[in-house]
């Protein structure tokens, strides 16, 4: 065992290996994929990458913080719905909707005999306010849930089940209140952003790059959190919560912060999803998508920020490829993937890299393994 004193390497923002990793991710998203894929496929990848925001947040709050949220779909959906409400209002201008009995309100409201815009839709007439709300609404919601739960030391399994219940509640509400939310169909037929048609190929391409840029910004932010003292406290909390508490840290506040940050990431993903896909529906909010988002993180490696991106891409590409040709095999495959990830490689792809590839590289380059990044041992227990 090599005991190292705290070196510059520990406190640096990024280790050399991580600089290389992020350059590879950036090159892949911003150069390689756009250069090799046609417009349709690129849009598809853009859609997958919006889930990577969620996975990134889950690495922070699940991998580092040890809090498994099964309700990230809530925040993805809230962000997405905020964006969709703005776009819908823009698409339902008075002249676009003059055949309705009440022009100027979204079509589904007209179908449900609503004659004026509900109050909570009003802020979404302004783009600035919408952009603020996209982050603020999910973060505040996460803060409320987090404060209520973590202050009372609800954690682990109970937290997971309660977030799941909240996801169920939100889905039922959205589906049930059709006049206010578009019901099961969601908010569809979105056309323009400030007069800019988002349905054209060129717009989709631009949105893809905006999405990719935001994702890399979020990775950098997450990396900053991971390297900061905050990140260390999070990991310490995951491993021995009581000790951290007895050392005088407010465990609840750190958890709330991680959970809120994860929610904000998910919300950005949701908003970008709406922009690129052109609609938002409750099928991205509920329990099933929320758990699928957890599996993206698990496949990539719950302890690796980059792994989250690769995991998301890989699972979604596999899903598209399989469900196009063998729709029946896909569910078997996905189920097997869940089981395999948990049982065989709990730290996902990144875990495989750390335990097999990194030592091999180290041996080939004749460096002692202790000098490379230590494999992150053991999955968090709860």
């Amino acid at each position, binding site marked *: 065992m090599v005991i190292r004193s705290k070196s510059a390497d520990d406190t640096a923002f990024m280790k050399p290996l991580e600089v290389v990793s992020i350059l590879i991710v950036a090159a892949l998203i911003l150069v390689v994929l756009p250069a090799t894929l046609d417009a349709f496929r690129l849009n598809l990848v853009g859609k997958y990458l919006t889930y990577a925001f969620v996975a990134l947040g889950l690495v922070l709050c699940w991998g580092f913080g040890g809090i498994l949220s099964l309700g990230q779909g809530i925040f993805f959906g809230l962000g997405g719905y905020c964006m969709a409400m703005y776009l819908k209002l823009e698409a339902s201008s008075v002249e676009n909707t003059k055949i309705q009995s009440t022009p100027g309100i979204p079509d589904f409201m007209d179908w449900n005999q609503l004659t004026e815009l509900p109050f909570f839709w009003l802020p979404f007439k302004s783009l600035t306010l919408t952009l603020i709300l996209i982050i603020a609404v999910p973060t505040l919601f996460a803060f409320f849930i987090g404060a*209520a739960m973590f202050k009372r030391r609800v954690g682990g399994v109970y937290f997971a*089940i309660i977030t799941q219940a909240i996801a169920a*509640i939100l889905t039922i509400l959205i589906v049930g209140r059709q006049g206010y939310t578009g019901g099961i169909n969601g908010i569809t037929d979105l056309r323009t952003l400030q007069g800019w048609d988002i349905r054209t190929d060129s717009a989709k391409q631009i949105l893809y790059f905006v999405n990719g840029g935001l994702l890399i910004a979020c990775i950098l932010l997450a990396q900053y959190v991971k390297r900061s003292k905050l990140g260390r406290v999070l990991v310490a909390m995951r491993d021995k919560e009581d000790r951290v508490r007895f050392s005088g840290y407010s465990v609840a506040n750190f958890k709330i912060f991680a959970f809120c940050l994860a929610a904000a990431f998910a919300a950005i993903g949701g908003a970008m999803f709406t922009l690129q896909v052109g609609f938002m529906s409750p099928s991205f909010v509920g329990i099933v998508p929320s758990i699928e988002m957890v599996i993206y993180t698990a496949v990539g490696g719950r302890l690796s920020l980059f792994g989250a991106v690769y995991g998301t891409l890989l699972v979604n590409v596999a899903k598209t490829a399989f469900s196009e040709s063998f729709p029946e095999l896909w*569910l*078997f495959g996905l189920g097997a993937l869940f089981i395999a990830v948990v049982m065989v490689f709990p730290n996902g792809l990144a875990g495989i890299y750390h335990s097999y590839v990194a030592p091999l590289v180290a041996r080939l380059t004749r460096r002692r393994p202790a000098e490379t990044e230590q494999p992150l041992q053991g999955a968090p227990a709860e």
Partner: protein
Amino acid sequence: MFGDYSLGELTSIFVMQGFAGLILFSVFLLMALGLAIIFGQMGVINMAHGEFMILGAYVTWMCSTFFHSYLPALVPIYFFIAMILAFLASGALGVAVEWLMIRRLYKRPLDTLLATWGLSLILQQFYRSVFGPREVGVELPQWMLGSLPVTDVIEIQINGLFVMALTTIITIAVAVMMYRSRWGMQVRAVVQNRVMAGAVGINTEKVDRYTFGIGCGIAGIAGSAFTMIGSTGPTAGQLYIVDTFLVVVFGGAASLAGTIASAFTISQAQSIMEFFLSGSIAKVLTLLAVVGILMLRPQGLFVLKVRR
């Protein structure tokens, strides 16, 4: 909202909805009993619990089809045979799953959640491939059809009564098994202190395996009972899993009395509200209340007093 109804009508509404709530209560309780054993006693989060239930339902359906075509004389009692078979099938699958999967994950409860979710996806697709995507319903024997008129407006369905009787019997059986039998003592000993239980000669692995198996078997019976009041499809199990977990958590995971009380509260609240509000809002309000109370009392309504 009560103004439009007369007192007599209100009474009937409450009795009818209360009775519907009792059936819902029986279903919740049957599902939650298995889960209370698996989650409450073993700490395993079994997201595939609904699928074990559906297995029981499909076994019952197969029995129903079989008896109706080959042994029409025995149709009146086929249900009891189907229930035993459902218990055995789900229980056997449970034992196999425990041996292949769960026993490696006891120290990582959150990972059991992911792994069993994977299992539930596989089982769903399996049901879809084998039985087809359509919902199936069983043909009930003649004596279970119909209803007993209590007053002019109040009628009580016989199959509902049957489900309630069944639930009562199984609940008592589980209570006896957990708190009066040698077996239940071993289960509780293993849960409290695995190492110590092993040291005094309890075969902890065997206890785990059969506990999980019995929990799943009870889910199978629940599914069997389920066919009497509704139809079964490949994804039906998923609809109930969150409700069931909330019932178990709300009652206090390790307490049988708590599970019964919380199943009763939740089902009655939902059933009575459903009449006055829309179904979805009733559901939302019930879930919200449960979540709210859980935030105030994280350990559930009934907490076992244990030294930690």
